[in-house]
């Protein structure tokens, strides 16, 4: 299939992009890597009036250090994320999850910011961003604002991004020395997550000093396994403790039922995968 016709803008700066979005008419879609948008347009499930392609906005690409954070440009491709030394050092969870996204061709085009702004509940990166307390820098014609990950994801495929706004970069706190693991559960390699768990823990000796756990596909938005995090904080990192804490992983979640899994099975998976993710992150 071929998409329905649309007007195309290909800005080279953020300001041009914002102008293009503002003047694009009623239904504007922002094209990042296009790996989710283009298939949807081909199936004619989306038929935007205007497509604003960010591919050539160079200032949206790349990873840099800024104080206590690393800053990832929204248009940094998954491949670039995987090759980036700052991410490998300070936020390896992002790389680990990114490696599970689709396939190498898709990772060459798909972008970190695009995946976050798309906010698919089965996507891998939103839960990671949530677990790592990332901040989202959003630009509009009126200026910029910064949104915490916990506020960014609003509903199924919906974020706080308003019409006319662009996600420009993501600030991720540097967490050197944390243990991290992304535990993904799928039926086939290429598929979206049925459930996945992103875990980051800071150990102090044999104790878990801090734990952050993000859940993929356990509701319309990514979620934190807060009860599990609380149970782990300050606890001795033993198999029994982790298993007991993981029993709370599905609390306050509302997963959907679909071809791959009913909600009750997703609840169960969240517990098992949380146990595995935390165990791996804690280095047990």
């Amino acid at each position: 299939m071929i998409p329905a016709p649309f007007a195309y803008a290909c800005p080279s700066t953020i300001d041009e992009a914002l102008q293009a979005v503002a003047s694009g008419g009623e239904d504007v879609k922002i094209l990042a890597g296009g790996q989710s948008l283009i298939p949807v347009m081909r199936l004619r499930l989306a038929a935007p009036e205007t497509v604003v392609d960010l591919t050539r906005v160079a200032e949206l690409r790349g990873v840099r250090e800024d104080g206590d954070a690393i800053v990832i440009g929204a248009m940094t491709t998954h491949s670039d994320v995987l090759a980036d030394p700052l991410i490998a050092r300070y936020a390896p969870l992002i790389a680990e999850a990114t490696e599970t996204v689709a396939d190498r061709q898709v990772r060459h085009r798909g972008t970190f910011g695009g995946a976050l702004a798309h906010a698919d509940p089965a996507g891998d990166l939103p839960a990671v961003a949530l677990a790592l307390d990332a901040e989202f820098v959003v630009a509009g014609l009126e200026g910029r604002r910064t949104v915490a990950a916990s506020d960014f994801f609003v509903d199924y495929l919906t974020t706080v991004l308003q019409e006319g706004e662009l996600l420009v970069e993501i600030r991720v706190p540097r967490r050197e020395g944390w243990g991290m693991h992304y535990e993904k559960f799928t039926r086939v390699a290429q598929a979206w997550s049925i459930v996945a768990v992103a875990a980051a823990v800071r150990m102090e000796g044999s104790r878990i000093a801090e734990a952050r756990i993000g859940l993929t596909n356990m509701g319309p938005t990514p979620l934190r396994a807060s009860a599990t995090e609380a149970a782990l904080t300050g606890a001795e990192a033993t198999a029994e403790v982790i298993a007991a804490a993981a029993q709370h992983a599905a609390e306050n979640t509302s997963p959907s039922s679909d071809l791959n899994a009913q909600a009750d099975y997703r609840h169960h998976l969240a517990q098992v995968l949380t146990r595995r993710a935390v165990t791996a992150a804690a280095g047990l």
Partner: protein
Amino acid sequence: MTQISVRVDGTPYDDDVEPRTLLVHYLREQLGKVGTVVGCDTSNCGACTVHLDGEAVKSCTVFAVQADGCEVTTIEGISPNGTLHPMQKAFHEMHGLQCGFCTPGMIMASIDLVNDNPDPSEDEVREGIEGNLCRCTGYQNIVRAVQQAAGEMHGRSTAGDTLGAQS
């Protein structure tokens, strides 16, 4: 219509395209590069894989306008006429194809993989080509072919027994 300038398999082209034209349709219908095929509409099968500025992409999930100013390499451009790229040769020698419809994409993805990983293990090959579906071969001989080609592309001697051995 938007004008684009693109080099495909070493030849420069200036063409007008509709923004909605997919790169694969531009290649097939405007340039006659029918070696690259379309197998699905959801970016799953990988049959349309080409290299865009040296990286494997699914040309059904890239608009032709996005290739403006870029270098595109298809299955028709990886070796001079009358010769074979080591990956093509290995697919032939290892019987890594049957109907051949997935083969151009499979070869392009495999070259990309071996460019990144000069000596992939069996599991690394399997994961490296997870974005390319083949319905005929069961993949085993494709895996073998990619490993053989990796050896040849990076100057290692190739396996002595090139028959898809019954092991």
